[in-house]
């Protein structure tokens, strides 16, 4: 560090503690102005010979001057003070013009726009005032900061205003409509309420970047439109930066820190060139125009000029000043124009929004689009909200709002925008990855969430951090977090590994597919694939395979090790895909969206290991909805969930059809984000209404909801039973289907058969309950239909007993005849089957014998007749006996209590019967059977031969 001494002169007396002093040059370097927050006077110094001529002193304020601003052509000087006034002077004469505005609290900062037509003033008051300098009228009040505003800077084009408050929050306003284009919360140090230190921000002279002091004693550059962090200048400052100023050409920047140093930076090289240590903190600096010199003023009111601070070896700060003229527009005065423009913009963005809102509920919200959507609130709605709301909407509120706006616009289809809506063609749904939530800057989001685990990402300084967690921390492998340089937006996870992909962003960032196996015997078994001119849309993985569907409608299948195994061309643009074990389900568009806003999509379920197609068909959706999730249930059936909240499962019933097994109740406070399902329930994350997807923190928990079919409201009043029955039938059907499948492939099916039997039992119980409710509502035909649905003989007998107890003899009779028919059928089967399959004969015959003890077996006709008679006899006798017994027992009771207790009785009787029936059966059959068993035993061995001859 070169030792150099600057000559300081006192401009303002600062008694006591440090004060904030300001210094400003006019555009021709003829004069400079100084002020101090502890001195009510403003000094206009002669720039050429400051030492000889005494400064012109302006004494109009009653208290310390905290802010100074010169218009760009140096014709006006504005000053703001602790005495709450903003005064305007002519320059350089210093003639007092007007008290242009007053605040209720001290002013902290002033800024002129490029053309000098507008003065922005802000301070401890709520809101930044935009004042028309011609007539002093207040054009707008921008409300949004939560602390004293200490820094303001107009963008060169005059359309943006950046502001910073003492809490370190930066807001960028669009002056045209008063909307916040971006918020950077807490990016700068918190200076508290001290008037001697201010937070500052400055647009670069080329207007591309915004320089703001950072939290790490650095200067951070932000992008003009998006507010994205571009880079930071970090160096020798030991404490936070309190002032900064760009060189006129934007190549250098001078920063002053609380550590009493002033550093000079080369912005392009991001390096500090020079520094100077002062005795006092430098509270303000100004580059001398057309000169390689920086004037500084310290907190004691002493100013000095640091001459030729940029080394002669480098470009002078006055060379190459960007030639951007301030846009000469009568921005604010011409209100009619503006309103027109706004309306125009609104209708434009409305069109966008209509398209967007169809676009899968806008899952890919970027900052820019968010901004656009807030614009949709036309008639200054958003503007008003911003002005009225004391607090600024946070990012999530923005999101909610955008959703609300969407909805409003959708509903407003019949309103003023009908013409636009009618002319808008509905768009095909864009592709999505199941279990992904939209990316939000600065927040952790899900790349993938399923029943097994989740993958989350958060952007951090240009890179993303990806973390993989298994729900079952004990069983799943522990996966280290990963730095993601590609910016992955989709992922898929299963037990063996996870796959990532990113969309391509321009030519430099190609779309990349990456696979990370969790367990591998070889080290470094991750692999990546790059796609040139192609973009990965959806990824999926399964047992030993990884699949990616690309924008060229190619389905690429890789092995776990990264071998490219298959490339298939798909029929249409992909919507989504999901994998499970050997199966891959891919959903593609078949045609453009129907005019009624219905998506036409097709699915294929492929078996990767066998290279076969297992299922193919159309995707069923609620009219006007989008597909939001697909997946396989725990049992492996394909399921889908749409944006109207209907969950469907694909079954092989009716040659393959979708069954709506669950639907969100209307007007519910919660949205369900489906994660998985099994045969009885659906696992989902419940989100409070306007939210449609969950946040990563706090960690979401799964809610289990029972499946419920959208049943019509029946007169029976037993909807839950009907629902249960239908679901059980569906489940039983599926299980039997699987048993058949497995049997055909020769796999042992006993376990599944047991399961099916249990299901039959529980289904019969459900039917019995339904029969009793049918009987109580006098729908006897329905009851007899239900009777036919019973699968087990035992439960049929129970049904007969039930109706007998209910004193419905004609129904009992009907039921008896149904039972007889059933027994007859079974007997027929038992007789016809053996002839075809002698091996099974023994088993079936034993069953039939237990049920109906035949007197003798000679010929088929004979058997039939005997069986019929015995069955009738048996059932009839049991009935009579049982009825007598229980009626005798309960005669007294029944007479007194009668109808009121009927329900209770039904239950009692049912219980009784369920116990009694087997007992009765056993008792009776035992008597008759025991004797015969021996004979039967002997006969049975000869039976097969006997039958085969018949």
């Amino acid at each position, binding site marked *: 560090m070169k030792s150099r001494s600057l000559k300081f002169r006192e401009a303002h007396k600062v008694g006591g503690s440090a004060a904030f002093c300001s210094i400003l040059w006019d555009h021709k370097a003829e004069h400079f102005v100084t002020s101090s927050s502890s001195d009510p006077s403003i000094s206009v110094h002669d720039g050429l010979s400051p030492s000889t001529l005494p400064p012109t002193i302006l004494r109009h304020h009653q208290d310390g001057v905290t802010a100074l601003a010169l218009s760009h052509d140096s014709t006006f000087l504005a000053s703001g003070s602790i005495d709450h006034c903003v005064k305007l002077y002519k320059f350089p004469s210093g003639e007092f013009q007007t008290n242009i505005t007053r605040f209720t609290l001290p002013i902290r900062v002033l800024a002129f726009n490029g053309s000098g037509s507008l003065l922005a003033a802000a301070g401890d008051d709520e809101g930044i005032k935009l004042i028309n300098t011609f007539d002093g009228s207040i054009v707008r009040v921008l409300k949004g900061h939560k602390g004293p505003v200490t820094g303001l800077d107009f963008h060169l084009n005059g359309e943006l205003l950046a502001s910073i408050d003492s809490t370190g929050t930066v807001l960028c306003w669009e002056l045209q409509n008063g909307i916040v284009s971006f918020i950077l919360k807490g990016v700068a140090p918190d200076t508290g309420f001290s008037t001697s230190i201010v937070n500052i921000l400055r647009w670069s002279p080329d207007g591309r970047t915004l320089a703001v002091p950072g939290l790490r004693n650095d200067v951070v550059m932000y992008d003009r439109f998006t507010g994205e962090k571009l880079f930071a200048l970090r160096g020798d400052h030991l404490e936070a930066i309190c002032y900064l100023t760009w060189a006129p050409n934007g190549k250098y920047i001078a920063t002053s820190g609380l550590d009493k140093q002033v550093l000079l930076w080369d912005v392009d090289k991001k390096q500090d060139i020079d520094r100077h240590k002062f005795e006092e903190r430098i509270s303000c600096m100004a580059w001398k125009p057309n000169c390689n010199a920086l004037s500084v003023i310290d907190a004691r009111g002493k100013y000095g000029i640091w001459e030729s601070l940029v080394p002669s070896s480098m470009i002078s700060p006055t060379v190459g000043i960007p030639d951007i003229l301030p846009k000469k527009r009568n921005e604010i005065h011409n209100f009619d124009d503006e309103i027109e423009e706004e309306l125009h913009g609104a209708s434009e963005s409305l069109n966008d929004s209509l398209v967007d809102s169809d676009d899968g509920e806008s899952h890919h919200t970027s900052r820019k689009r968010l901004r656009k959507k807030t614009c949709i609130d036309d008639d200054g709605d958003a503007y008003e909200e911003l002005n009225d709301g004391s607090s600024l909407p946070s990012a999530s509120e923005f999101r909610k709002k955008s959703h609300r706006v969407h909805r409003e616009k959708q509903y407003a289809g019949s309103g003023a925008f009908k013409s636009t809506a009618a002319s808008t063609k509905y768009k095909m749904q864009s592709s999505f990855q199941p279990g992904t939530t939209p990316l939000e800057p600065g927040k952790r989001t899900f790349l993938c969430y399923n029943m097994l685990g989740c993958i989350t990402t958060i952007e951090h300084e240009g890179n993303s951090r990806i973390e993989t967690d*298994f*729900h*079952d*921390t*004990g069983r799943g492998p522990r996966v280290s977090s990963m730095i993601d340089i590609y910016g992955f937006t989709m992922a898929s996870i299963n037990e063996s590994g996870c796959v990532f992909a990113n969309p391509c962003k321009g030519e430099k960032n190609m779309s990349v597919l990456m696979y990370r196996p969790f367990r591998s015997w070889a080290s470094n078994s991750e692999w990546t694939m790059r796609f040139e001119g192609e973009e990965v849309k959806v990824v999926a993985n399964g047992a030993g395979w990884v699949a990616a569907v690309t924008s060229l409608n190619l389905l690429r299948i890789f092995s776990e090790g990264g071998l490219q195994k298959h490339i298939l061309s798909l029929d249409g643009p992909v919507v989504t895909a999901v994998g499970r074990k050997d199966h891959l389900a891919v959903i593609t568009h078949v045609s453009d969206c129907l005019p009624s806003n219905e998506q036409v999509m097709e699915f294929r379920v492929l078996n990767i290991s066998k290279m076969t197609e297992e299922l193919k068909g159309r995707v069923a959706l609620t009219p006007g909805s989008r597909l939001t999730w697909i997946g396989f249930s725990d049992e492996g059936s394909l399921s889908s969930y749409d944006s109207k909240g209907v969950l469907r499962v694909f079954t092989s019933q009716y040659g393959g059809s979708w069954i709506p097994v669950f639907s969100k109740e209307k007007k519910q406070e919660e949205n369900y984000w489906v994660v998985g399902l099994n045969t009885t329930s659906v696992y989902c994350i419940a989100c409070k209404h306007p939210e449609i997807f969950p946040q990563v923190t*706090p*960690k979401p*928990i*799964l809610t289990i909801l029972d499946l419920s079919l959208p049943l019509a409201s029946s007169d029976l009043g037993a909807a839950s039973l009907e629902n249960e029955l239908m679901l059980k039938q569906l489940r039983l059907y599926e299980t039997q289907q699987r048993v058949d499948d497995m049997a055909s492939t020769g796999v042992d099916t006993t376990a599944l058969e047991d399961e099916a039997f249990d299901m039959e039992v529980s289904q019969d119980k459900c039917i019995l309950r339904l029969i009793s409710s049918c009987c109580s509502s006098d729908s006897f035909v329905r009851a007899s239909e239900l009777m036919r649905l019973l699968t087990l003989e035992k439960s049929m007998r129970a049904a007969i007993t039930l109706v007998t107890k209910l004193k419905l003899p004609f129904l009992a009779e009907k039921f008896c005849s149904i039972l007889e028919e059933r027994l007859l059928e079974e007997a027929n089967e038992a007789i016809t089957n053996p002839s075809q399959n002698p091996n099974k004969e023994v088993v079936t015959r034993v069953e039939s014998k237990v049920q109906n003890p035949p007197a003798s077996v000679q010929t088929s006709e004979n058997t039939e007749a005997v069986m019929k008679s015995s069955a009738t006899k048996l059932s009839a006798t049991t009935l009579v006996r049982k009825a007598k017994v229980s009626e005798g027992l309960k005669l007294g009771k029944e007479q007194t209590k009668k109808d009121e207790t009927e329900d209770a009785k039904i239950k009692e009787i049912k219980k009784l019967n369920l116990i009694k029936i087997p007992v009765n059966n056993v008792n009776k059959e035992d008597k008759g059977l025991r004797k015969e068993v021996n004979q039967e035993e002997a006969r049975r061995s000869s039976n097969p031969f006997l039958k085969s001859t018949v």
Partner: protein
Amino acid sequence: MAGQTDPHISLFSPQEVEFMAEDELVEIVPNMNMEQLNFISGDFGRFIPQIPTKVPLWLAVALKRRGKCSFRPPGWMSVDNLTQILEAERESQSTFQALPFSYVEIARLLFDHAHDDIPDKYMVRSLVEDIRDVRLHKLETNLGSFQGTSAVKISNVSAMEVNIVRPFVRRALEAFYKHDKPEADIDRDTRSSRQQREANNEPRRPLRQR
């Protein structure tokens, strides 16, 4: 009470009160798969990752210690609710707000074992402590307003609070009873043998009969 430390003053140690509170049910989110657990007190589970289930506090603490679950803080342990309760407690001098019977113990166990699962834990902690202090102070001042009664009814007093004031209240009530009754007894006992009564003068007895 078999496990009582000192049966004479009917006081439980805080550990004992805490032990009893461990039977309260709390909601946990397991991160492991486990079959249903069948205990005498009931069946708990089955445990599926990320699906909340209710288990006794002692089991939840045991699982938490092994890193097998995370707690879902009970509804009353939110900053909003506690602030409301604290305000209400401060407002009315005579009534107590409804809180779980063993809120002190539950809160204590949660802070000891599951502090990472409680949002705004420092705030919640100080609120619970404040509420406890306010209530205890209130209870103690309320004791001063006892008149010559033999029964006191205060609703919503928690286990720990009852435990603290129990010995005093019991003795005080007994004393009231003793001082009130003799006159009544004299009238009644003039006919019967007073001698016998005096010989059998156990302070507890009359109270038990009530």
